[in-house]
């Protein structure tokens, strides 16, 4: 394993970001991983593919998403806060960027089916959407517990023509949905692409997903520079698997901006995890002394993941990015604050990043700093849950 030099450049040929990454996949999947890598390299070197990818994201996905300056909240926090508005992308989050890329690649590889895992349903809905657009068959694996908690998202995926497969193994949540999707991929790999939802899994997934998400970082770099005449002092994003963070970080990795990833306190793989191998990658993982994986727990289903993309483990290692965490209560407060002061109801995931900003303003973030927050998704998917939580706390009637 050779260490790569450019922060957020290409991983090594074997998929390593420093000492993280790799390809820990059953042999039945290895040919598919190699085929995918070759197909992605080929596509990503092909201007026609880029053109199609960007055109679909523009005409169908609503890109570029704007950058919004939060005047009232900035004033209150004593910083200058900008939001990259992935909540305005089609299907309501940055997930669409990745699935459009992978769906186009699926077609290019001559495959007719896609499978995907999902937790709360965001990546599942995005995958079903891309599949509908391109006429691919789509099956989404979702923990049975999540299919019950998110019955409406199940219906949404079904409306989009996907089959939702409830996963009854393990904790019946996201981690198990990934397991089950991988198992299925093993038997259907000849005509099926596994559309992984974040910068995780075996090489080339962490790299490929980051590349598909880097469009948002490139856009943001240009937009913020136009607005500020400079890069921001801080670039902040929530981290579940780490795809939205990787996307926005990649636009500023070569700049002076501090990069901050914010995990859920109950799923903080960087600060409380140890190196391990899960779902095809070596990274920081929540695990016990025997190497058994520990379940993550967060108010936000999208951050409820015991691992983190290998590139983030590497960025933490080399100190190019810093990882913090936020707890459920401050996240709820942040969500309410942004809603009331700026008219934007954030998803619970980016509300973690905002909670950190609110806590750090005037401390880790010096007053007067410019801060770019990746608003990775909209809160509509979460309002029912937030209402229940506030009701349970006696904070809502």
């Amino acid at each position, binding site marked *: 394993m050779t260490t790569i030099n450019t922060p957020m450049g290409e991983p090594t040929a*074997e998929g390593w970001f420093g000492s993280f990454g*790799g*390809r*820990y*996949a*059953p*042999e*039945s999947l*290895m*040919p*598919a991983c190699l085929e995918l890598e070759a197909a992605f390299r080929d596509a990503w070197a092909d201007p026609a593919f880029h053109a199609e990818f960007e055109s679909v994201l523009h005409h169908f996905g609503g890109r570029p998403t704007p950058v919004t300056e939060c005047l009232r909240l900035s004033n209150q926090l004593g910083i200058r806060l900008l939001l990259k508005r992935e909540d305005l992308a089609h299907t309501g989050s940055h997930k669409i960027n990745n699935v459009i890329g992978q769906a186009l690649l699926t077609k290019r590889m001559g495959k007719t089916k896609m499978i995907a895992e999902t937790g709360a349903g965001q990546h599942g809905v995005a995958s079903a959407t891309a599949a509908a657009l391109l006429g691919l068959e789509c099956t989404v694996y979702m923990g049975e517990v999540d299919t019950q908690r998110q019955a409406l998202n199940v219906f949404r995926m079904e409306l989009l023509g996907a089959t939702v497969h409830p996963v009854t*193994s*393990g904790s019946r949540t996201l*981690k*198990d949905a990934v*397991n089950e999707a*991988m*198992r299925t991929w*093993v*038997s*259907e*790999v*000849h005509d099926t692409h596994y559309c992984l939802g974040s910068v995780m899994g075996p090489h080339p997934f962490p790299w490929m997903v980051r590349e598909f998400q880097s469009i948002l970082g490139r856009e943001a770099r240009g937009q913020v520079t136009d607005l500020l005449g400079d890069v921001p002092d801080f670039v902040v994003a929530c981290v579940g698997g780490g795809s939205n963070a990787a996307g926005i970080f990649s636009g500023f990795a070569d700049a002076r901006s501090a990069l901050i990833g914010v995990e859920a306190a109950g799923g903080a793989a960087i600060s409380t995890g*140890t*190196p*391990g*191998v*899960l*779902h*095809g990658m*070596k990274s920081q*993982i929540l*695990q016990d*002394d*025997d*190497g*058994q*994986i520990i379940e993550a727990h967060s108010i936000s289903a999208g951050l409820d993941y015991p691992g983190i993309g290998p590139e983030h483990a590497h960025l933490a290692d080399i100190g190019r990015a810093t990882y913090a965490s936020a707890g459920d209560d401050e996240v709820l407060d942040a969500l309410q604050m942004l809603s009331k002061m700026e008219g934007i109801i954030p998803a619970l995931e980016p509300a973690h990043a905002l909670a950190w900003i609110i806590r750090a303003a005037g401390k880790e973030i010096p007053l007067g700093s410019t801060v770019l927050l990746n608003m990775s998704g909209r809160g509509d998917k979460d309002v029912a849950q937030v209402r229940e939580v506030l009701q349970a706390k006696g904070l809502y009637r």
Partner: protein
Amino acid sequence: MIRPRLETHLRAQVANGRKLLIPYLMAGQCPEWLQVVEGLAAAGADAIEIGLPFSDPIMDGPVIQAAAVSALHAGTTPMGALAELSALNLEIPLVAMTYYNVAYRAGHERFAGRLVEAGVSGAILPDLSLEELDGWSEVALAAGIDPVLLVAPATGVERTAAICQRSHGFVYAVGTMGVTGERTELATSVHEVVDKIRPLTDLPVCVGVGVSTPAHAATVTAFADGAIVGSALVRRLLDGGGVAGAVEFISQLRSAIDEGPA
């Protein structure tokens, strides 16, 4: 407690014209699992695969997943299970099967050491690909553990050659594209995968994944060196078959193999 080393033993058996039968069970999946191991050894197994339970077994179907859950719920740990194994008196080699994180988290040296202490002489880590083998492979071999590698129906010829080159003990021919689990029919890919491996190695070639019945075992051992039977046995044990049920099933498999295909 010295047991025969995996590769030495299997090569010898094959040289004697014996078709190999390698049953799999999950450590800790039932209270009597150690007696089952002894029973299988006595009833004609040529080696036994011992699953060490892992929370996220991505190569396993529902039956072996359930066995892992049951073992973990009963408090089984990979290291604890190995310690228990060391007490057994067996004439055949044992092969550990688990996922790479168990070995990685323990540390290669420590994990290999524990295997050796347990009298285990082979290891199958299905998610440790050829690409990531460096590090573990050397440590294992140095400790006297044969790292057994897998070849899948989808594996190309060149890659198969590379895998065969680095496999020890035997080559694990994955009989079908899919996870572990019982199938009513043997996959057509079984023959092809063995044919692909044969010219590339003189190691024994054993077929696993989807070999579920005595008839399957007889069929595959007609062209492969051995049959690996996992889910079919694990299910019998989960269903409460106990030592007797396991021994009866293994005896049926043994006879079918020895008689050859119908």
